[in-house]
């Protein structure tokens, strides 16, 4: 651990007894936070626990109702982010605030551009950017346009932007939520580099593993209340999880042994192109049987996304067969697959999973609006639709915050996912495809999602799980198929897999199945 750099004598941030009220609702109820020089401090809490509210007060976006904020021992009144920046605080938001068509350099110096007379001095700007990126070991291409670089790179640009403005204290809001596993490793290395240089970092997250890997201390918030601050080295992930949700969380998925039945999904010699017209699935074979979960492990970009798109009918393949219960759904409309037994939890819940402007109840009938009892003679029947929604909300623990009529777009990510799962599981099809089903969810919600996926398996359904979370693949799958370069290169029983072997095979070092 990196605690060697922490200087316990110099608290750079102190938030004392912070209370923030919105009307009669208390979002932060007496929260304390102390961060020292050279420290990585995690703020842990469930979705909606008040982490972002706390950080937005530190960054001058919100004003505390009561309580004090001290920076370097001096009490500070922050009215806007400008004040926070002047005090040496920088924030990298979860959704980046970059100008897409501008270059990296232009984005970093934006607002504080070096000038020559009245003209911009872009040569100087570029020099400054290169210099600062070298100093902190954040390699970037200063001339690349933001729209052309990866999400991980964009995040580096955001961090450099804050450093360029003289930040000594960095707030990272859910920094790993859109990164690939490799990028996460790189980010953690960058964070360690920065604290070595005397910076302090506050990281907002609900991912326990990353806290264990990166943070020195962790402050836990639950339902707006301060639960405590712990030395990360002295606690386990399980301790953190139960402090966060207020009950014991099981990571181990209960999965009785079960003999799989006949083949439901049979993919034969599938080929398809990606959006650039390059062949990305290259002769792939795959089978999923009743009562088993087949997990697809692989590094992003090896064809798993396109594979699922072809199975669900969203992408046309070039050749091959996709048999579902013996019916070929290859290159048929999504509806055809659905009618023949395919249901799926899509990777992008906001793009494919939900109509965000629609109410929860309308989203719950997305494939079934045309069937009785939800409609009769093409007229929607509001009463059964409403009853179905009330029932699903209760059964699937969706927390709609008031009404079944609320637009899906106003729900939190976890609840949006629950709406999709409620819908797809209740469709009760023979094949369930789940793509990154727990992305961005907190442990409580993850536990719940896993339970429903395993339930489907136990009920004798075939489940195809595609996930970039190796832990998820290993804990859920009966069989793990490793995908590399558009083919399944290895197929191993779930119980026998270990992370190292899988990692090697995912990188192309595997044996041919």
């Amino acid at each position, binding site marked *: 651990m990196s605690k060697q750099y922490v200087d316990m004598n110099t608290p750079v941030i102190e938030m004392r007894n912070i209370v923030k009220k919105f009307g009669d609702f208390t979002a932060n109820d007496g929260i304390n936070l102390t961060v020292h020089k050279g420290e990585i401090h995690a703020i842990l809490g469930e979705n909606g626990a008040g982490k972002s509210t706390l950080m937005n007060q530190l960054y001058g976006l919100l004003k505390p109702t009561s309580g004090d904020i001290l920076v370097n021992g001096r009490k500070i009144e922050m009215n806007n982010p400008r004040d926070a920046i002047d005090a040496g605080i920088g924030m990298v938001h979860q959704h980046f605030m970059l100008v897409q068509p501008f270059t990296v350099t232009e984005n970093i110096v934006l607002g504080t551009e070096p000038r020559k007379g009245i003209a911009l001095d872009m040569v100087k700007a570029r020099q400054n950017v290169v210099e600062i990126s070298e100093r902190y070991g954040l390699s970037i291409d200063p001339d690349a346009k933001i729209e052309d670089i990866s999400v991980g790179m964009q995040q580096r640009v955001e961090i450099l932007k804050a450093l360029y403005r003289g930040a000594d204290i960095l707030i990272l809001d859910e920094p790993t939520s859109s990164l690939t596993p490799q990028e996460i490793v790189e980010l953690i290395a960058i964070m360690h580099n920065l604290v070595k240089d005397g910076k302090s970092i506050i990281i907002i997250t609900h991912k326990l593993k990353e806290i264990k890997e990166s943070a020195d201390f962790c402050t836990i918030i639950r339902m*707006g209340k301060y639960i405590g601050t712990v030395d990360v080295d002295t606690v386990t992930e399980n301790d953190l999880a139960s402090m966060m949700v207020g009950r014991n969380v099981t990571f181990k998925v209960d999965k009785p042994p079960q003999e799989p039945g006949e083949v439901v999904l049979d993919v034969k010699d599938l080929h398809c192109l990606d959006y650039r017209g390059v062949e990305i699935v290259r002769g792939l074979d795959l089978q999923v049987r009743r009562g088993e979960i087949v997990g697809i492990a692989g590094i992003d970009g090896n064809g798993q996304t396109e594979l699922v798109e072809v199975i669900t009918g969203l992408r046309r393949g070039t050749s091959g067969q996709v048999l579902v219960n013996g019916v070929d759904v290859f290159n048929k*409309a999504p509806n055809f697959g659905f009618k023949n037994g395919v249901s799926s939890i899509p990777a992008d819940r906001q793009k494919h999973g939900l109509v*965000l402007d629609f109410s929860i109840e309308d989203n719950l009938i997305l494939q079934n609006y045309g069937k009785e009892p939800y409609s009769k003679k093409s007229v929607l029947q509001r009463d059964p639709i409403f009853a179905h929604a009330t029932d699903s909300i209760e059964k699937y623990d969706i927390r709609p915050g008031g009404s079944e009529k609320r637009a899906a777009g106003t729900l939190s990510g976890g609840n949006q996912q629950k709406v999709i799962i409620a819908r797809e599981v209740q469709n009760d099809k023979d094949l369930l495809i789940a793509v990154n089903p727990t992305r961005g969810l907190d442990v409580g919600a993850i536990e719940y999602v896993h339970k429903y996926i395993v339930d489907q398996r136990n009920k004798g359904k075939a489940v195809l799980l595609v996930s970039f979370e190796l832990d998820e693949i290993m804990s859920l799958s009966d069989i793990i198929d490793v995908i590399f370069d558009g083919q399944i290169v290895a197929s191993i029983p779930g119980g026998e897999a270990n992370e190292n072997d899988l990692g090697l095979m995912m990188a192309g070092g595997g044996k041919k199945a």
Partner: protein
Amino acid sequence: MTKKRTFLEIVSENRFLHILISILLGFLVGAVFLAIMGLSVGEAYGRLITSVTSLKGFSYVVVYAIPYIVVGLSVAFSFKTGVFNIGAEGQFVVGSMAAAVVAILAGGLPKVVLIPLCFLAAMIGGAVWGIIVGFLKTRWGINEVLSMIMFNWVAFYLSNYIAGIPAIHSDGTAEATKNISANASTLLPTAFINRAGLCPTANWGILVAIAATILVWFIIEKTTLGYELKAVGSNKFAAEYGGIGVNRSILTALGISGALAGLGGALQLMGMGGRISVFSSQEGFGFAGIVVALIGCSNPFGVLIAGLFYGALTYGGSKLNLVGAPTQLISVIVGTVVFFIAISVIFENLKRIRSRARRNAENAARKAKEEQQK
């Protein structure tokens, strides 16, 4: 929320209030122009009001409003379903001409047969005009806005061409079609009009417009068709994922929208015009429809009211020259109203960017509160 909300925040959250204020601002700008021209604001606006509040004046307003309402519904329907029907103008012209051809060539048919036949011809004409554009879009990805604007001109010249065909063209010297058969007219009986003191073109087309309003509302809010079209309009990816045929939905939406615009053309012809002139410029009903849909918030009943408002402005505006004010003043007022309705969209976007972080925080807090209460 403890923070006092600013006036602008309240306005941007309340669509109705916002539109009302836009309308007031429109009149305010109109007043400035009147003042610059040295005319009396009170006299001009007084005239505007008195000319539409008498029974006869109001009957004019209703007659003027009929095509505006129906074309407004056409555009509003397209907004709801995610396509922007800027081609209502062309669909209106085609529908109007289709109704005229039927009314002239089959003029001998009895009223009960001829009138529905004319409506049907107009709706088919408008629908076809919309579906062609939809086909170009779904088949080859041609931007519908561009092809619609071009199709407006195709409709324009097609209508002029048909008006020139001997069987259709007026027997007299007028550069227009023959008058439509009396059996195709929706005018109220002359004796009744005189007795009640209504305008000479008083017709029952308004009943059709009201029926269309209810029907559109029913389709959008109550049917599986409306569900499909709205789903495609607001997220075509999720709609497709859910098994809805996206291309078919776009064609259906444009077909219905076009049929409404075509119906507007028929109502205008059969209730007011009586014949179709050879155009020298576009008549602008389609564009009026866009304004009406905007003012009516794309809500069918809002469109009904907005159509009457627009009718009142057009009719009242035509009386302005009696007090020496130019009729074009109405264009200034309408232009300003649309400007302020549209600018709020820009303004809201700006505000959204500025306060996104703040709002996110408040949302998160609200969600947490609700989950706590649960």
